[in-house]
């Protein structure tokens, strides 16, 4: 068996059902092996077991794999060639690292003997991708190929998940040896630490001290992050919150950890969190962080975050996150799914039944009084209205991917999310161009699910080439471009912090015709909407279209994202805009965010 054939066999053994990637000289042997594998194993229905999905650019492949991984919870696989193929994956690999998404990038490399000679299409993959990946392997000993590929999957999916890169010289792919079908590399330190976290069960003493804090509190709040989604701990979190009546707010990455439509669900907190969620954080006296890392978009001023919390508890799989930003009174490093179940069972066993009815009333009041709102009378189409129109049809069950910027925040705020893995967004890295390829990847993970890319006119330009990928593979993704002719979020900051000087953020003089673009890439449905009276009808028609469908909506270019906690400010200084009430009036002039990020 050749090295290339071994790789394909291991991918099959790992349950890989789709590969996203772009071919080229140094990866040709493995592409050929995939082709032969598919030809030999095509089902009676004509479906290939491991189709190769070819993007316009390798960055697209990376985000397709990320979208696949986020929507399915399985490892996404990228296969690219050496040099530019590999370096084009740097952004998605860093994005996956920052949002803890498990993907494997297999990249061809020049033959072992040519490494370091500035050979054609050679790039130092370890040096480029090493600092941004969870791990990188360079396979120089073909005898270790099998164990390396299997270990890469193990590392990607275990502990805090992340991207793993396998740099694969061409001669290793062409090498012939005996396939054993088993074996892993010794990674003793990693496995020992993983084992320690898995075996670190909550004992009764620790549970008792947790419930001591819970029972002493009258306004407890769960602050759930992406770790709940990545750790598949949604059911356990919901069970705990429901049973003890603890309201839940989630981070951007944690959206879907609880059903956002429920009375005790506060939806998103943070810089653009809902005012009700942020005020609940201000008011809570016991904050329970679950798989959340107090990042700067949530806790811009750590010492002023949850200022009335007498206790803070933190659950995480990653010991480095405990107390990294804000010190906590109680912490536990372990597997969320197991630990949340253990806490719940302890409380059940000890008949803990706190009553938080006053707090629940307060939450209800906060949600009512500080609900999201906007100018509903405007003649211009409001982006929020577009999302509400879509949401009234999808009802919190569609998979939503986004680019980065205002549209991303509107999609986070105004859609309902009933389940985990419906919300795919580049949270930590904030990569514009994520939305379209992520939607394509997600559609492969959930073939019959409605997948919508909610994008901005600037974000979608970043990976616009992938429009053609959607039609090439006949994917019924629905693409929405909220066109405000520029970088809306940048403009919002320029208005607030740079006296309205719109440096390089205006695209109103550009000649792009999005509908023609979509049509040229094979979209049978491509419509531009600029009449608000046609909104509901057009959205219905667009979503009902069988196959890929593209909708551009020209929105109010001055629509802003509110609420907003300015950079470096605390939640009590939150701006809520003209349509959402605020507890305290802070004038925008008081903020100098020019040094903030």
């Amino acid at each position, binding site marked *: 068996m050749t090295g290339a054939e071994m790789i394909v066999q291991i991918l099959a053994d790992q349950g890989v059902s789709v590969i996203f990637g772009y071919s080229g000289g140094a990866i040709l042997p493995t592409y050929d092996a995939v082709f032969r594998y598919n030809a030999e194993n095509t089902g009676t229905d004509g479906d290939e077991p491991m189709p190769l999905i070819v993007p316009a650019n390798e960055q697209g492949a990376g985000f397709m794999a990320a979208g696949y991984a986020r929507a399915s919870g399985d490892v996404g696989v990228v296969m690219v060639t050496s040099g530019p193929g590999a370096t084009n994956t740097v952004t998605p690999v860093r994005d996956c690292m920052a949002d803890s998404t498990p993907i494997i990038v297999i990249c061809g490399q020049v033959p072992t003997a040519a490494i370091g000679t500035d050979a054609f299409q050679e790039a130092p993959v370890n*040096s480029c991708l090493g600092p941004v990946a969870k791990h990188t*392997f360079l396979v120089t000993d073909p005898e270790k190929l099998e164990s390396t590929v299997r270990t890469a999957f193990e590392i990607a999916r275990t502990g805090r998940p992340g991207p793993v890169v396998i740099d694969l010289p061409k001669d290793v792919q062409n090498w012939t040896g005996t396939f054993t079908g088993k074996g892993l590399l010794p*990674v003793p330190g990693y496995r020992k630490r993983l084992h320690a976290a898995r075996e670190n069960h909550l004992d009764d003493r620790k549970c008792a001290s947790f419930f001591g804090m819970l029972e002493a509190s009258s306004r407890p709040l769960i602050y759930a992050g992406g770790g709940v989604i990545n750790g598949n701990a949604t059911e356990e979190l919901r069970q705990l919150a429901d049973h003890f009546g603890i309201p839940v707010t989630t981070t951007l990455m944690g959206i879907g950890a609880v059903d956002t439509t429920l009375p005790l669900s506060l939806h998103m907190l943070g810089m653009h969190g809902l005012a009700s969620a942020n005020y609940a954080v201000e008011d809570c006296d016991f904050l329970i962080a679950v798989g959340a890392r107090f990042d700067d978009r949530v806790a811009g001023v750590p010492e002023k975050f949850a200022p009335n919390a007498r206790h803070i508890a933190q659950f995480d799989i990653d010991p480095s996150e405990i107390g990294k930003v804000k010190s906590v009174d109680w912490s536990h490093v372990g597997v969320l799914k197991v630990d949340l179940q253990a806490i719940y069972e302890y409380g059940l066993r000890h008949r803990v039944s706190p009553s938080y009815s006053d707090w629940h009333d307060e939450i209800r009041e906060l949600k009512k009084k500080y609900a999201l709102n906007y100018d509903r009378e405007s003649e211009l189409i409001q982006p929020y209205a577009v999302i509400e129109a879509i949401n009234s049809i999808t009802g919190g069950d569609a998979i939503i991917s986004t680019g980065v910027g205002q549209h991303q925040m509107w999609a986070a705020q105004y859609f309902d999310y009933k389940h985990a893995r419906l919300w795919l967004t580049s949270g930590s890295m904030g990569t514009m161009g994520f939305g379209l390829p992520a939607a394509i990847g997600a559609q492969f993970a959930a073939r019959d699910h409605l997948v919508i890319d909610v994008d901005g006119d600037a974000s979608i330009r970043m990976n616009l080439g992938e429009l053609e990928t959607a039609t090439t593979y006949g994917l019924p993704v629905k693409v929405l471009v909220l066109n405000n002719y520029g970088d809306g979020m940048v403009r919002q900051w320029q208005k607030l912090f740079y006296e309205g000087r719109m440096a390089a953020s205006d695209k109103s003089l550009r000649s792009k015709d999005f509908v023609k673009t979509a049509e040229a890439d094979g979209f049978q449905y491509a419509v531009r909407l600029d009449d608000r009276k046609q909104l509901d009808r057009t959205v219905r028609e667009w979503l009902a279209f069988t196959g890929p469908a593209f909708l551009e909506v020209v929105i109010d270019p001055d629509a802003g994202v509110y609420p907003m906690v300015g950079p470096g400010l605390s939640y009590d200084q939150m701006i809520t805009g003209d349509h959402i009430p605020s507890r305290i009036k802070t004038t925008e002039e008081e903020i100098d965010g020019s040094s903030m990020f």
Partner: protein
Amino acid sequence: MRHIISILLQNEAGALGRVAALFSTRGYNIESLNVAATEDSEISRLTLVTKGSDGVIHQISQQLLKLVDVVKIADMTLDDHIEAELLLIKVVVPTNAECNLPELIESAGARVLDDSPETFTLELTASSQELDDFIIAVSDCSEVLSVVRSGAMAIARGHNVLGAGF
């Protein structure tokens, strides 16, 4: 505070680069870094000297433990340990009559590895602080042409070892 952190690392492609990159990407400072094989040919030992508050050192340790190749780490400064660093130094033969280089060498416990009509090449193994002091004393006495240091190394006192075994 100054900390000496010892790291047992699997001998894999890019492993050393990952440790170094971690320090640069997270903005931690490295005063010195020493790396060589251990009794186990699969494992290298890095000794890294860094400065930082307890919180920073804790984060450094936690972040190092996230690197797949890292087998074990220890903050040597937390326990009783022996520190040593190797210095090679080349100095011009003193012309100043007040300078008694042989006495300096002897009192510090240094050795002359090479002497030529114009220069002495000396070796001294001691703590990093003692090396600093010796370099100052020598440069007060004569012109220093070159300083080569290994970076500090540390080993626990007594029977304790930082072993890769489990």
